[in-house]
């Protein structure tokens, strides 16, 4: 009951007492939202290194089949399957989600809403601990008999349910358990995010004073929560199929494997938007700050994000056009799939309209945000070929599909994360990143990214199937043109991985030698920039009040071109 009478100042003093904590209390078992955000961020980055290494190994196998890959050795077909499966799962579940939703959500939601922590700090810590457990469980799957699971991240039965097909009896079950634990972690985190955003806004902050990135992270959490349930149930059913011999998905004994595909994609397609939405929010924040303009049609942008959420529940079966689904349903799902491109395109137009007539500064975060728009547009446009049932039947399981979803996921998970990281780095660590190194990193990364995946669109159109570990056994896939494109893609990809050392060097160097950032280096409006950099435990001495929306830039009649949310007039 004491908490209810405690003032903000008293809370600050109470938190100051926390300063004398041991290393373990402070960095490992902390309930502070910023520490937990850092834990998610660095775990996600470590997993990105692992996922990137996996892709390096199998891309080398694609370009130089049968050759010994440096740092790995010969890639056997079984190893190839395990590598691509875990690359996909890691990049989505253990990189995109922890970094975009958990790390940025944990860091930004309390700071942008002007409160001292998440509403359930200990639940928040438990969420990270379960997430970490899921990482360890996933690692353990690589060391059991038969090795890690190799049946693709979609875990389709009967390949995933029968050990005699997938040859990884332990790995496939452990893989499912790891994914299920990861879901539990994000359900907990999601409930925390949603409740915090709904209940703990600063006094004076109305629904439409909430910054876009908080809206999108919360919408993503709701979307995740609404779509993941059937897959949790399905995962239990599949684990029972694998371990105790039920026949939920075994057509031979009265089950139906298509059911799994539906349960999986009912989650799997909204999941695309779960990771897309936070990236869209991050880009919105950056674009408004660096074009010094109000976000064009802020309310429309929110409605568009909600429409995307709702529509994303109706499109899932476009992943199954060749799975033998009802052709009449394929018509319906084609229409809804093409329909969802409308709100997403609208969001892109919101950004472009925000840029129009602004006074744009090309800082590193702004470059990443613009790079997101440019590359994601290409990813979205190529999706139309795949969303249409007629052309998807030809393109399905070719490298065209692979290039398409890398052109959507890469901008989301990598470019979006870099945009957010470089933008909020001064707030997180109190120092500025080096701009020159940042720009080198950006230009080389985005060029090498295009060099990696543009050739794969072409190989896909030429008919290259994406599940083949060694093309030499198919003469029609072993042509000089295809091999040249594969080699070009692989070399680009290696360059892309190598240039990340520039980023790592930049971060390490800036942490020690970077210019002091001060509270508000970008002259931005939102509340997190009114706290110290980095914010102390409890964030503010006196929690802020909010007087206006987040995007009041270049308001006529003011001496400065920004108008922070907490300034009374």
């Amino acid at each position, binding site marked *: 009951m004491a908490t209810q009478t405690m003032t903000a100042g008293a809370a600050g003093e109470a938190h100051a007492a926390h300063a004398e904590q041991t290393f373990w209390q402070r960095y490992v078992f902390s309930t502070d939202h910023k520490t937990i955000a850092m834990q998610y961020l660095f775990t996600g980055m470590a997993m990105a290194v692992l996922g990137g290494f996996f892709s390096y190994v199998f891309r080398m196998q694609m370009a130089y089949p049968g050759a010994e890959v440096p740092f790995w050795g010969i890639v056997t077909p079984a190893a190839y399957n395990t590598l691509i499966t875990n690359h996909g799962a890691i990049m989505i579940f253990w990189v995109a989600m922890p970094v975009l939703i958990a790390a940025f959500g944990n860091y930004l939601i309390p700071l942008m809403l002007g409160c001292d922590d998440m509403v359930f700090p200990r639940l928040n810590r438990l969420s990270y601990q379960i997430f970490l457990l899921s990482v360890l469980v996933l690692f353990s799957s690589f060391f059991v008999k038969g090795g890690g699971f190799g049946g693709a991240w979609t875990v389709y039965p009967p390949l995933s349910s029968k050990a005699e097909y997938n040859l990884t009896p332990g790995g496939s079950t452990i893989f499912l358990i790891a994914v299920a634990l990861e879901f539990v972690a994000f359900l907990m985190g999601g409930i925390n995010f949603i409740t915090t955003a709904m209940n703990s806004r600063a006094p004076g902050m109305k629904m439409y004073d909430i910054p876009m990135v908080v809206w999108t992270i919360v919408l993503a959490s709701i979307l995740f929560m*609404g779509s993941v349930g059937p897959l949790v149930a399905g995962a239990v059913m599949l684990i029972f199929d694998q371990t105790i011999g039920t026949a939920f998905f075994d*057509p031979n*004994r*009265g089950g139906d494997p298509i*059911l799994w595909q*539906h*349960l999986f994609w009912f989650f799997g397609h909204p999941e695309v938007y779960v990771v897309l939405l936070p990236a869209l929010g991050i880009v919105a924040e950056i674009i408004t700050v660096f074009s010094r303009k109000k976000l064009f049609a802020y309310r429309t942008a929110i409605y568009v994000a909600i429409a995307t959420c709702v529509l994303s529940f109706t499109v*899932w079966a476009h992943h199954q056009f060749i799975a*033998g689904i009802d052709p009449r349903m394929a018509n319906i*799902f084609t229409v809804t799939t093409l329909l969802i491109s409308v709100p997403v395109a609208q969001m892109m137009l919101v950004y472009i309209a925000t840029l129009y007539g602004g006074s744009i500064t090309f800082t590193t975060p702004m470059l990443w945000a613009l790079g997101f728009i440019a590359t994601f547009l290409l990813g979205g446009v190529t999706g139309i070929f795949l969303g249409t049932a007629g052309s998807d039947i030809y393109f399905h399981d070719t490298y065209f599909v692979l290039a398409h979803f890398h052109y959507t996921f890469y901008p989301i998970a990598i470019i979006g994360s870099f945009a957010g990281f470089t933008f909020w780095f001064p707030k997180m660590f109190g120092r500025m990143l080096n701009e020159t190194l940042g720009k080198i990193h950006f230009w080389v990364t985005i060029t090498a990214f295009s060099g990696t995946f543009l050739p794969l669109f072409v190989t896909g159109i030429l008919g290259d199937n994406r599940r083949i570990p060694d093309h030499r056994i198919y003469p029609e896939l072993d042509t000089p043109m295809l091999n040249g494109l594969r080699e070009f893609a692989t070399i680009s990809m290696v360059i892309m991985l190598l240039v990340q050392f520039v980023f790592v060097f930049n971060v390490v160097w800036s942490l020690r030698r970077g210019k002091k950032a001060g509270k508000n280096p970008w002259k931005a409006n939102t509340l997190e920039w009114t706290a110290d950099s980095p914010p102390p435990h409890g964030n503010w001495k006196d929690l802020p009040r909010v007087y206006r929306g987040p995007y009041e830039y270049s308001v006529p009649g003011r001496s400065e071109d920004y108008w922070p949310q907490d300034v009374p007039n």
Partner: protein
Amino acid sequence: MSNHDAGEGHAESGAHAHHGPYVRIWAILLALLVVSVAGPLVAALIEHRPTAIAITLSTAFGIAVVKAYMVVKNFMHIDFTKRFVPYLVVTMVLFMVLLFAGTAPDVMKVKGLNWEKPAWIEANAEAAAHPAGAHGAHGDHGESGH
């Protein structure tokens, strides 16, 4: 058991919910339970098959919906929370209807459209549906079953 003061409920949702006549609601729930169990027993006596099925389904599922509504309304006090909570619950249920609508056309189509299901699959499925160890010896499961 407080009286129903509508004004207070609207003004302060954070305060205590109205406590209704819980024992009476519980008694109604039990009565509904008896009806839902008796329904199929009555239906078993009826010769006309469609009527029997209609009675079974309406007593089983119709009453389940009524019971669930009573619990959600009176015990969980959904009408004393903010308006969005019932919307949220209904939305989640609608998502499940959507899942059913999109999935059922495939999963419920046991026979294919442009293909023949091989006979041996049927045979296997039949064998799986009638497990060997499960014959007879369940007379003590006091159920007429039809």
